[in-house]
């Protein structure tokens, strides 16, 4: 006897590969396990207001490009009468509106959809930035030097220096130097200047606090320093390192937020809304630019997609038939006839499908009885049966339609050849084994078909088979394992029950 080990190892590999790929795709692409799962999406709207001055207008707004912690899903502008484009130059993205002539108060809108995504981080700049040169006038110059010295004594790295400096510049700290420095200046700007002075590249970034249904919000400044590898974000007031989850950095590079040429009194305000979008829809939008997206069937044309939706359900049906026949031991007429019937049920829905199937088969059996008396050869008998089955389905469709049952029409979804063979087999069975066996196998087939239908029409099955086609490896593995099952079928426990009478 050959060792079964390689076989089971292969099955183990199949199943783990299928599961691992599915998990990977779930994590990487965010394809949800269950259909109908919702994911939050922040809709942020920037509103630009200004007074136009009867001349050509060019408004330019800095817009985010993959801010840390968020994934940019979509963006759009609403601004009637304006030409619009998004230009990116030197790593900055700017929304630009232009108009030949404008007068009076103007309002421009720019909307983005952001998905919280912790995997998005700031990419390290290609060239390490250099610290700006900063000039101080006395007496600030002395104060800056002393405060920096104080901070430097308690720190060892750019990060710790930044934290210490922020601590020292807090109003509670009693230092004279700090009061001198902080009075009457833009505090975050002061921090950035002092850090640059200390040789640490630092800049101000503008963040937006995300809260559901807020309007007229403004940006809050955050401090960013470069530690030699990447830009780190600090809260300039608490000294906390890192960005809170609910803050999106709208502007990072030290460029202007809004420039308006040909207008005055310009200002930007933000409003935001928390939406939920089906997670699957998000995954599909995102999958296009991910390496793992290549398995996705959404790349196919729609027509093929619907075809595959059906095809990929077949393995589920096959699994059910294998289980029912091997482990339970239900007798069916034709090995996979139940799966094909179940596929037809998916199209017709269950009750009309059952009614149509039973009526076609019983009418077919009656007619087959007559054919049987004619003593025809096999091929012509089956051919005649196929034509009769088509007559019957046509008849059912027409009568059903006349009587106002649209469901009568669905009978056409049944595979005619399979129906004809089913009738033929049932009929031979009837002649050879009697009506009892026909009923047993007929109901066995229908029972398995209904089970397969229930499994195949479950939204979860539909969702999983189509979105995680790799799970079919698991199905394949299970079917292969079942092919090795040598135990008793459930029905055999009943069949062999008289063995109880014998001592064992």
């Amino acid at each position: 006897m050959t060792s079964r080990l390689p076989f089971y190892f292969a099955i183990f590999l199949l199943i783990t590969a299928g599961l691992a790929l599915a998990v990977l795709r779930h994590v990487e692409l965010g394809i949800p396990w269950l259909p109908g799962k919702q994911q939050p999406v922040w809709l942020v709207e920037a509103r630009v207001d200004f007074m136009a001055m009867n001349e050509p207008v060019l408004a330019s707004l800095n817009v985010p490009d993959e801010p840390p912690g968020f994934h940019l899903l979509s963006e759009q502008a609403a601004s009637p009468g304006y030409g619009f484009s998004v230009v990116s130059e030197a790593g900055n993205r700017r929304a630009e509106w232009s108009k030949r002539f404008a007068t009076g108060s103007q309002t421009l809108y720019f909307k983005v959809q952001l998905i919280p995504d912790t995997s998005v981080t700031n990419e390290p700049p290609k060239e390490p930035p250099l610290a700006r040169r900063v000039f101080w006038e006395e007496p600030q110059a002395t104060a800056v030097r002393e405060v920096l010295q104080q901070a430097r004594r308690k720190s060892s790295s750019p990060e710790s220096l930044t934290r210490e400096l922020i601590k020292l510049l807090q109003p509670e700290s009693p230092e004279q130097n700090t009061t001198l420095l902080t009075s009457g200046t833009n505090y975050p700007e002061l921090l950035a200047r002092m850090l640059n002075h200390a040789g640490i590249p630092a800049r101000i970034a503008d963040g937006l606090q995300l809260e559901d249904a807020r309007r007229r919000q403004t940006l809050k400044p955050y401090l960013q320093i470069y530690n030699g590898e990447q830009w780190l974000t600090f809260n300039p007031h608490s000294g906390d390192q890192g960005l809170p989850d609910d803050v999106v950095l709208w502007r990072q590079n030290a460029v202007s937020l809004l420039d308006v040429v040909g207008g005055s009194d310009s200002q930007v305000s933000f409003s935001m809304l928390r939406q939920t979008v089906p997670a699957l829809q998000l995954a599909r939008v995102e999958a296009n630019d991910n390496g793992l997206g290549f398995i996705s069937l959404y790349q196919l044309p729609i027509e093929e997609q619907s075809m595959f939706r059906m095809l990929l359900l077949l393995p589920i049906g096959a699994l059910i038939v294998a289980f029912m026949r091997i482990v339970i031991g239900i007798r069916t007429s034709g090995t996979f006839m139940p799966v094909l019937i179940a596929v037809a049920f998916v199209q017709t829905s269950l009750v009309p499908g059952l009614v149509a199937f039973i009526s076609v088969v019983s009418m077919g059996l009656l007619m087959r009885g007559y054919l049987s008396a004619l003593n025809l050869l096999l091929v012509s008998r089956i051919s005649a049966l196929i034509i009769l089955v088509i007559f019957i389905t046509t008849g059912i469709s027409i009568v059903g339609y006349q009587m106002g049952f649209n469901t009568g029409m669905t009978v056409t979804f049944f595979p005619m050849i399979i129906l004809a063979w089913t009738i033929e087999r049932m009929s031979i069975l009837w002649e050879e084994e009697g009506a009892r066996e026909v009923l047993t196998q007929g109901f066995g087939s229908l029972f398995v078909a209904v089970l397969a239908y229930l499994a195949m029409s479950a939204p979860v099955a539909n969702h999983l088979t189509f979105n995680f086609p790799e799970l079919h490896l698991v199905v394949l593995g299970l079917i292969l394992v079942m092919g090795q099952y040598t135990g008793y079928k459930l029905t055999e426990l009943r069949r062999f029950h008289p063995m109880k009478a014998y001592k064992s």
Partner: protein
Amino acid sequence: MNWISPLRLRRAGILSMNRRNVGYIGRYNERASYPLVDNKLKTKLIAAEFDVPTPHLLQVVTQQHEISHFRELVDELGGFAIKPAKGSGGKGITVITRRKGDDYVKASGAAVSLETLERHLSNILAGLYSLGGTPDVAIVESLVKPNAKLAKYSYQGVPDIRIVVFQGYPVMAMLRLATTDSDGKANLHQGAVGVGLDIGTGQSLNAVQFNKAIRLHPDTGLTLANIAIDNWRDMLEMASRCYEATGLGYMGVDLVVDAEQGPLLLELNARPGLAIQMANGEGLLPRLKAIESLKRFHRSPEARVAYAMEMFARPIQQA
């Protein structure tokens, strides 16, 4: 409820359908040997080479136009059987016992005309009864006259003896008796009575019908407890020789006892059923495993039969 626990079944050594398919038919039966058993004509020819007698072959009809020869042949015959070579489970077998004027009388007593028989032959050639509907040939055999001693137990049909042969060793046997329920056929799932036979002596053990233990034949009313098969060792050796003939490791050998010719091979089955275990009140597995664990197989059919008769004999029953 009438259920038996799987543990108990395993203790009884009952071979399950799945295990039979994977562990025995799949492992010991070469696919290439199947045509030898699925085609009765080939079975007959190969059996003759290995000194296994079969019912006398009267005619083989392979082409539609040869059916006219059948008319000439059959004119001289009293009883005969028409069989599709590739039929399975007794499908398409017509047994004619005698003539009645121009008509032929079937085993069931119904009279049929010559035209009906010719159409039947035509159907056989078209593959009506063959596995998968492939074209087939019809064979015409001389009628088996069942040995009177056994025939009295059976209702209408000819009683046959099924011997399961594993690796050439006869491991289990039963006598199959037709009933009214089985419509003259000897298939257990159609309602024939199965009587377990002791491999050691050919004595009857238990009897079952429809999976239920019975003591009397439901139609003939005869007690089934004391049937003894004559020439038991010869029959086992015949069955054992079929292993050399076909090379099939796990098969069912169906024998009949003819009143004049003695035991004849009726057909071979590469997928013998499991009901024989019920008729014997014993599982096949321990016996199959005993054969599998043999260090050296016995070369000759005689040695194998001697071994099996000793190994698988029932211990003497209480008085």
